[in-house]
């Protein structure tokens, strides 16, 4: 075990480097022109050249995404608690939620632009709209799965509905909640970048849009790589928090 551990930790890096190598060699070997598919090295070089602009837009997107994500967490936990703690509300709200989630959010962006104008606010809202659904579903599921025997034990102790939520519901929903955060934060990036692409003059979406219109494909790919890196970083942060706070759910074994 102790010997295998470092290899396991290096695996993601090896796989990533391997992917870039294959990409680099394939593009060079097949003589794909830069404006169709740039090599990763050209993308990184372009990113370095435009590092000031890239950094500014990346920060804009990161903050936009996190703002939308924070709203999604607050809203998702509230709605999820409501839906998960009452069968009636669950039955009533479920079709609406599924319907809402099925609407492509890219179609909502023009509506948001009509209401709030071009800029950061529609991007925050799109990030929120696209990422709250998994949180709601997971929190509700975590709360709703209570063993009947345990419910009997608690009811015979005179536990109120709030007691049951506090003592059993929320702790049980925690692993579901953290699992949904990992998914939601990556979705939030999708939402904010999408909105920036359609209607903004700031952020990674805008940067890639304008770079694309000038056929600067290496810069577009530099942008994609930066977004991917931010997504992986956020996912990683929430994985660590998840593992720390819900050790019981994995029975002490290291999680994913």
């Amino acid at each position, binding site marked *: 075990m102790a010997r295998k551990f470092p290899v396991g930790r290096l695996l993601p890096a090896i796989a990533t480097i391997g992917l870039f190598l294959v990409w680099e060699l394939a593009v060079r070997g097949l003589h794909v022109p830069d404006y169709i598919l740039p090599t990763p090295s050209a993308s990184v070089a372009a990113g370095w050249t435009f590092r000031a602009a890239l950094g500014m837009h990346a920060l804009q997107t990161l903050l936009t995404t996190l703002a939308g994500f924070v709203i999604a967490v607050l809203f998702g936990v509230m709605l999820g608690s409501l839906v998960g703690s009452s069968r009636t509300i669950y039955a009533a709200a479920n079709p609406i939620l599924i319907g809402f989630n099925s609407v492509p959010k890219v179609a909502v962006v023009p509506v948001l632009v009509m209401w709030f104008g071009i800029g950061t606010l529609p991007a925050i809202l799109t990030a929120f709209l696209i990422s709250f659904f998994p949180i709601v579903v997971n929190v509700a599921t975590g709360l709703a799965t209570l*063993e009947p025997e*345990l419910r009997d*034990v608690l009811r*015979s*102790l*005179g536990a109120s509905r709030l007691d049951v939520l506090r003592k059993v519901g929320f*702790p049980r929903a925690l692993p579901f909640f953290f699992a949904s955060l990992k998914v939601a934060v990556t979705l939030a990036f999708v939402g904010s970048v999408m909105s920036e692409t359609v209607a903004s003059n700031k952020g990674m979406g805008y940067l890639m849009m304008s770079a694309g219109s000038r056929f600067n494909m290496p810069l577009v790919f530099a942008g994609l790589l930066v977004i991917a890196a931010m997504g992986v970083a956020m996912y990683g942060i929430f994985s660590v928090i998840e593992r720390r706070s819900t050790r*019981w*759910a994995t029975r002490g074994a290291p999680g994913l």
Partner: protein
Amino acid sequence: MTAVSAGRAGAGGGADRDRRFVDLDRVTLTYAATGRPAAEEGTPAALAETSLRIAKGEFVAVVGPSGCGKSSLLKLVSGLMAPSSGSVIVDDREVAGPLKIVGMAFQNPTLLPWRSTLDNVLLPLEIVQPFRGRWQKGKGEFAERARALLAKVGLAGFEDRHPWELSGGMQQRASLCRALIHEPDLLMLDEPFGALDAFTREELWDVLQSLWLERPFTVILVTHDLREAAYLADTIYVMSRRPGRILLRRDNPLPRPRDQESCYQPEFTALVHELRDHIRRVRAA
């Protein structure tokens, strides 16, 4: 009855033998598959015209074929379900809602995986009055009490382990502690040892018996293990097939405390045989 009283007197209990504590009077329970009580005609009854009297501090076992409404009986007495007709009286009061003097343990230990064993045992004290009101002040004292109880069932040293680090038998011991920590007057056991291996099960019989001898609470034990009923109970009831009703009431002549030797007494064997004959007849009917 006399034999039982004598046995209990020797163990220090028995003062309240003649006081009725639980009284079921011609109780019928009908409910649909959803678990909700249903009034409609033709729904098979879970319990039919069941009458049962349990004295304070009595250890009762209910045996019968599976699906005969034994678990429904527990839910009726603890007030988790209301009877369709008839009355359930506990401690001179008609049961109208969940009783707060009840401890429960099931075949599934249902411990909370994110809590340590100690915190699992403490759960009832965080919820039930008057402990709840004194929780902040009395926390240390409560924890000591839980530790003492855990030590009694042989779980000393495992207080800080999580349930998934314990064996099935240890989890069931902890579940028993959780059912008893708030010193309930009534302990409901629904096949609590059903999922354990034979050796662990018999060990836990002794654990339960010694806890009960120490502080006699009223016990209703639902089981399909006739030896378990004969080993533990003062009084054994045999139930019919669905719709369940009480077919037979047997006083247990064996003196207390009982041990492995008791299982080889002729009285024990005779009792188990008699119960088995009844169950066989019920199943064939």
